[in-house]
């Protein structure tokens, strides 16, 4: 079974890199979004097992935190189909990390400066399996 993964990242190099590592694994149907708008539309259109979310979605704008806004949308999606979120950022702060883990129950908060491909691949797989199990629980309740 292939898991559905959405990679939300505005920087082309990073997007390519993340997608590349996932393709290597051969277990994923991958969709990409380079902006908040595109990601939001895709989330409304189809269910995903895992969303990988960059916080700053307009790289030149220091104040941009549309990824955090997407986490709020993902909370609603998670209630319906178990989607798990992973944050990836080059501008992580303690406040954002606390908010992501505490308020949005993200699976991980990855700093680009400390990115480890093997750890990333393991984290995505674990998240996908968790989403599958969560979706089963949601369906059982219905």
């Amino acid at each position: 079974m292939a898991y559905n993964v959405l990679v939300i990242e505005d920087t082309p190099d990073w997007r390519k890199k993340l997608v590349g590592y996932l393709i290597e694994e051969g277990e994923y149907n991958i969709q990409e979004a380079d902006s908040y708008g595109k990601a939001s539309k895709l989330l409304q259109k189809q269910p995903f097992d895992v969303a990988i979310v960059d916080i700053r979605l307009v790289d030149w704008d220091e104040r941009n935190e549309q990824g955090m806004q997407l986490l709020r949308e993902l909370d609603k999606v998670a209630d319906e189909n178990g989607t798990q979120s992973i944050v990836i950022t080059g501008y992580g702060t303690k406040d954002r990390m606390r908010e992501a883990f505490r308020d949005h129950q993200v699976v991980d908060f990855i700093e680009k400066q400390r990115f480890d491909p093997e750890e990333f691949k393991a984290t995505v797989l674990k998240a996908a399996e968790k989403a599958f199990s969560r979706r089963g629980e949601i369906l059982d309740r219905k």
Partner: protein
Amino acid sequence: MNIANKRILLIDGREDWLSRTEAILRQAGYEVSKAHDCKDAQAVLQREGNSFDLIVANQLQVERAKDALYDLIWAEPDRRRRVVVLFSTEPTLPRMREVFKLGVYDCLVKQDEPERMLELLREVIEKQASAKVTS
């Protein structure tokens, strides 16, 4: 928020800190139990029941026994216990990430001022009371 009957379990290896914090929390109206490490905390939970609103663990006890902390948090797979880790100094992002990934609910820094400490714990309890339970 009414904190009467709110129960807190404190985990710390230092008896002086435990006793001092227990006194402050009791004075503020909390019911408090104490444990010296995560395994001791499991025994307290078995003995005193599972109805703690919050478990507050010292960073050292957590970092020395990550497996025990994980077991403490996820004893019931469909109901995560709310554990807050208290750091002595501002933690780095990697250290915070490490404990959050175990399922810890929040990370705080120990405050010298009792009032400030109480305020932080009150905020956490309020936050978790209003949060949806998904874990």
